[in-house]
């Protein structure tokens, strides 16, 4: 392959992406329209209930005034609600009243007719009874009368979202071998290039002259692509009770969290003193600057293959990976925490008779704590993302391992449940560190 091929390929891909964007544009516009419309409705409703007299509502200039822009709680609630409603509507969720569902796949029975030509100009019409049943259910093929003429009536049973070939001539007197063929379906002429819609299904003629019956799928998502919310919830309940593949949910989560905490703690234990040394000594800064500046932009995910080669897929490898993910972030945070101390504070401490050790203990370390907490938030976030990715690649237990195993068995509801759990836990970690920060370094940003 040469370079011009690469450019041509990338140009093609770029075009494809823009075409995809173009195709979702109408939906995007619709979504924004919903947001704006709901805002208008909300304002109407609120104004009719209570105009409100907060200080912000008395400001005449609001557009561009950052202080008047606060997150609207009602909008947040509506936004999340809409996501669930859309989710439910497109999955036929039982939690939603059925009038909110988008059209689902055809289920039940339907009938169409076909008209066969025996090859000698004689035609005869027969009916086909179609039964579409839900996945996991069984349906008996209905018995039908053969009817008159050379074409006998047929019946066929199809599972929802599947299609089936109808060997219509099997019970007919005139076979395809002898020149019989179908010329019309439901009275409309049919050919290989021209399928017929019979109301509940699309009927097409195959190359071999059989009929391919494709019942309408509607616009709902198949459960294998997007399970309904209640299915996801049910999978959470069963898996937290019975576990997945003999490993309980608590064990999966526990292992992931344990790896993150271990990797982060060791990373902080090494990184913070390293950062202090870099912030306090020319020599140490010179020594470690090239290493830190080189390692910082290397995404921890890129280290996964090397860590697996070196340490295997056991716990050490993962802890080493997370250690490396946290190390540079914590070192840089501690370094900037030390460099960020105002020289007047150091001068003041010296003038008050403090020794170097006392200045480190009473001025430099407390002064660097806000930066270190900011670093800890970033590091924990990166570690949490990295552990999931590492488990996707290779692990025996862990939340990432759980979703990758579930995806192999197409247990999409477990995959989605896992993703939601990962998000919730990542958010909880961030909130936890922020609370700890508020409690331990109340002076942050007030120096």
């Amino acid at each position, binding site marked *: 392959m040469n370079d011009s091929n690469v450019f041509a390929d990338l140009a093609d891909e770029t075009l494809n992406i823009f075409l995809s964007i173009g195709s979702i544009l109408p939906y995007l516009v619709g979504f924004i329209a919903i947001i704006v419309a709901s805002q208008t409705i909300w304002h109407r409703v609120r104004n009719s209930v209570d105009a409100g007299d907060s200080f912000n509502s008395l400001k005449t200039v609001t557009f561009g005034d950052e202080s008047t822009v606060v997150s609207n709680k009602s909008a947040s609630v509506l936004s999340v609600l809409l996501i669930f409603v859309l989710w439910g509507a497109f999955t036929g969720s039982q939690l939603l009243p059925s009038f909110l569902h988008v059209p689902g796949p055809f289920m039940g029975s339907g009938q169409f007719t076909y008209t066969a030509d025996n090859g000698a100009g004689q035609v005869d019409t027969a009916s086909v009874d179609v039964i579409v049943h839900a996945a996991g259910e069984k349906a008996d093929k209905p018995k039908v009368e053969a009817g008159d003429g050379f074409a006998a009536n047929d019946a066929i049973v199809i599972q929802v979202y599947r299609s089936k070939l109808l060997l219509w001539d099997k019970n007919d007197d005139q076979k395809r071998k002898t020149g019989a063929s179908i010329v019309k379906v439901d009275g409309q002429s049919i050919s290989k290039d021209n399928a017929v819609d019979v109301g509940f299904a699309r009927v097409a003629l195959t190359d071999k002259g059989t009929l391919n019956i494709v019942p309408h799928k509607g616009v709902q998502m198949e459960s294998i692509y997007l399970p309904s919310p209640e299915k996801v919830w049910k999978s959470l309940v069963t898996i937290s009770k019975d576990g997945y593949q003999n490993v309980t949910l608590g064990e999966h989560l526990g292992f992931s969290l344990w790896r993150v905490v271990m990797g982060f703690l060791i990373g902080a234990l090494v990184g913070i003193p390293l950062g202090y040394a870099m912030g306090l000594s020319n020599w140490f800064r010179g020594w470690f600057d090239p290493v830190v500046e080189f390692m910082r932009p290397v995404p921890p995910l890129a280290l996964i293959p090397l860590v697996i080669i070196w340490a295997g897929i056991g716990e050490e490898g993962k802890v080493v990976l997370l250690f490396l993910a946290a190390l540079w972030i914590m070192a840089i945070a501690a370094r900037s925490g030390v460099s960020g101390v105002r020289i007047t*504070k150091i*001068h003041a401490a010296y003038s*008050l008779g403090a020794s170097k050790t006392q200045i480190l203990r009473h001025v430099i370390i407390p002064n660097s704590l806000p930066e270190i907490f900011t670093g800890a938030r970033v590091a924990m976030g990166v570690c949490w993302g990295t552990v999931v990715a590492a488990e996707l690649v290779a692990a025996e237990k862990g939340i990432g391992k759980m979703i990758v195993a579930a995806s192999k068995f197409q247990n999409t509801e477990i995959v989605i449940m896992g993703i939601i759990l990962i998000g919730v836990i990542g958010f909880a970690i961030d909130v936890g560190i922020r609370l700890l920060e508020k409690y331990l370094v109340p002076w942050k940003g007030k120096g």
Partner: protein
Amino acid sequence: MADLHIDNVSMRFDLPGGGSVQALKNINLDIKSGQLLSVLGPSGCGKTTLLNIVAGFLAQTEGDIRLDGDAISGPGPERGMVFQQGALFEWMSVRKNVSFGPDMKGVPKAESAPEVDRLLELVGLQEFKDKAVYELSGGMQQRVALARCLANDPDVILMDEPLGALDALTREKMQSLVLDLWKETGKTIILITHSVEEALLLGERLLVMAPRPGRVHKEYYLPFAELGVGADLREVKKHPDYNSKREEILSMIWEMEEEIMGRTEEES
């Protein structure tokens, strides 16, 4: 006793881009114990450099500084410093900030507590002693800085524009406080300021410095600090000499500023 003896001190340092700056040239000063000296001058006259040398944060390139005969070679608790702002420790309460000096010396809490309380009373912050310093206003924070410096019982107090970041009203109150503390404690005080009025009101002795190279341009001995102790400073400003001195020094500094501007224009 705390006599500060500054003998022929010069300061010259190289610039990173080549060339050098003569920040101070042949400064000679004798500051008697208990003197309140204010130092005034246009920007770049080296007044902060001089203060930093006395504090021990910078080493002079020539000359000699002695406090009671001992050469100064670094910062020390006998020379306390009050900065413009941002030198308090936000992670400590008001009280802990004030007792920082004694704490570092290892003085037991029980021993230092009465003095810390007395100083907090003196600067009027007794009821705020358990507050965090960032909860205090700018003027209150400077009171904490003053008390913290005094708690260490230094021989000399160095003030680097301590009231520069305060609003006019707070500033006037703080000027009275500085005078009262000076009278009460009898400390030697060197005060750097940008404000001619402040230098006149607070300086028992006033130095006007000139730039390029930094040097002492003129020196005054003034009655206003003595008059201002325990008195209304606005009354002191009505003193017949006050306005004439103010005009004299202002025009002196204006001339220097204009000279600097002219020179930089020629250079560029």
